């Protein structure tokens, strides 16, 4: 029971972190061109997802 006191908040916090990361990546346009991103990583002059 005692362990639950901190384990559950930690679990929820980590989950929320993942959710936040997903929402952020969605907002910053990282899913707009999934195939293209795989190639652009090899391109030196290009480092941010654009629209």
């Amino acid at each position: 029971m005692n362990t639950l006191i901190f384990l559950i908040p930690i679990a929820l916090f980590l989950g929320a972190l993942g959710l936040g990361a997903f929402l952020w990546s969605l907002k910053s346009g990282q899913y707009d061109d999934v195939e293209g991103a795989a190639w652009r990583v090899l391109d030196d002059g290009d480092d941010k997802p654009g629209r």
Partner: protein
Amino acid sequence: MSCCAPGTEGAADAERARHALPSSEELLLASRPVGEGLRQSDLSVPGVHCGTCITTVEGALNALPEVVRARVNLSTRRVSVVWKEEVEGRRIDPQAFAAAIRATGYDTHLFSLVAEGDDALRNQLIRAVAVSGFAATNIMLLSVSVWSGAEAATRDLFHWISAFIAGPTLIYAGRFFYKSAWNAIRHGRTNMDVPIALAITLSYAVSLWETLHSAEHAWFDATVSLLFFLLIGRTLDHVMRDRARSAIPGLARLSPRGAMVVRPDGTRDYRPVEEIAIGEHLSIAAGERIPVDCRVIAGASDIDRSIVNGESDPLAAAPGTQLEAGAMNLTGSLTVEATATARDSFLSEVIGLMEAAEGGRARYRRIADRAAQVYSPAVHLLALASFLGWGFFDGDWKHAMLVAIAVLIITCPCALGLAVPVVQVVAAGRLFAGGVMVKDGSAMERLAEIDTAVFDKTGTLTLGKPRLVDRDKLNRAHLSLAAALAAHSRHPLSLALAGANAGPAPVIDAVTEVAGGGLEAVTGQGVLRLGNRAFACGKAVTSEDAHGLSEVVLTCGGKVLETFRFEDGLRAGAAEAITALKQDGIDMAILSGDRAPAVARIAGLLGIGRWRAALSPREKTEAVAERAAAGRRVLMVGDGINDAPALAAAHVSIAPATAADVGRQAADFVFLHESLEAVPFAYQTARRAGRLIRQNFSLAIGYNVIAVPIAILGHATPLIAAIAMSTSSIIVVVNSLRLRGRLPAFAVRAADEARPVKPMVRAA
């Protein structure tokens, strides 16, 4: 265009020149302002497939001074270009972008669908899916501990945590269902969202009540995972939704706003088209569209009447020729007499047809909606019956309530909600990989139902570009002479002639173009003329060409040197496509605006028994409507402006990416690669999708048949609900994924061909 290696580039050039670039006019209209004097254009580039393609296309575009930024999207095979409207006081011609892309070797088309990136509702739905997914996993973890036998105190704690996670999720992620259900109820209807909203609200309320009383069973996990699955279905469905689209604005743009009226005393006055009266004289310059139906009284020109008959061959206009509003005056200036007002002109008639056709199409109801209409009252009745049944049976109304809620949760259309959209999204992905774009999910359902296919000829079954016949049998010297003359003209036959000459051509200066006739040059050998027979021979010969081919005659001093005949080559894969559709038992016909001999030739080549020639847009639309009235489901495949009303009137329609903007707007499917085999491919994919949707429905219903009795008998616990719900959803999704698979050979080939070939390879 020309190259010094004889014999090799003839074919390659013909290959390259096959698709004209999108016109500047269309590109400009399809672009949208993004502020600060900038505009954005979206072009589809079906050939991009790797990192090098991205760099090549973006590099070529960014090298242009007017381009602010260019971005290739590899997933959607599109490039969006943001460009300045003006550079140093010069207006920018957006065709330069298309030309720059073409110069790198990639084919490009105008892309005029609504840009999906700006879809706010889709993003809201994805966020809701993420939130409900987070909530569902966390609550499910807590529930697993409860089910594996947590002691009472821990169980209560877990229930409370679940309640706190589920509450806000219900409000945030469930709002789509609440809104939709409320809308339906307010209008006295019921839809799939009513049982959903009822189930999630009631199960949450009951679970909260149970938690307050430290009871054993809470349904929070069911509530939230239900929401999660349903939102996935809803999001996919939104991607495949019917988009409001209309080809009417595109048609209306073909009408010039005004025209130059010439008064009897010779003064000129620019007036809006609506104010032009019958009998007034108008002056029409080269490059202008005809404002109203009229008759030529002076001047000569070539008229592009593709809006009337879909043909690329211009009509020679001379005094007495009748012209239709919307046709394009290509070469000379004309003085005409208006024979109809703008309201009674040809273009207004086409717009009227379009309005009627688009209005009639809204009748199709999607499979999912039809299923919902049966399903949702059934579920309500079932839940109500079990509530009353248990209530009267053992008098324990609370227990009756719990059973009714269990029934609502179990029957909740998770799998049903996923059944249609998952299949359609997978099918759309497969079609896209094969070079076919789908505008909405209902189009795919409609395509699966067809039993008749109607084709346009020029630009659909054929390439719509003339090709020289029997090039090898012609006198080389005459061909190069003709090519040298033809190089001075933009007439489609001249372009084809110039392109067909493989060797070096003599240089001929001082070529004059006689509008409606041909080309003339005075050389040492005499007067050379290249054009129609009447013009070239210098006398009025009227030979009705019954062979169905267009011809150009080269004469020297009135003596015929050579007759060049042109045919409109069949589109690649046309024969295979017709054979495939025939095997599927589809009834086929050709409806063309072209002359009968030309249509008969193509119909004979392809083995299509029924054809009609010289049809106006109205007659085409009526022919489609007649078949529909006879109970047939008609697929229309066409590309021209003259096909647009028929495309909209047909049960479902397909257009090539090279089609006129209006045609592409009106069609449900657009195929990007050249091969016509895209049509049977789309049909077969739609059929398979239809079959999978029906399978999914039976799976979902089969699940209900097993699970509902358990729920009605009161044996459904949250654990059973969770297992049953997830399993049925997963089965439906996995079944849908069976649609993926190998692409047909033509699509793989087309994808290879769409990539630019290195000049070395091409020459080899």
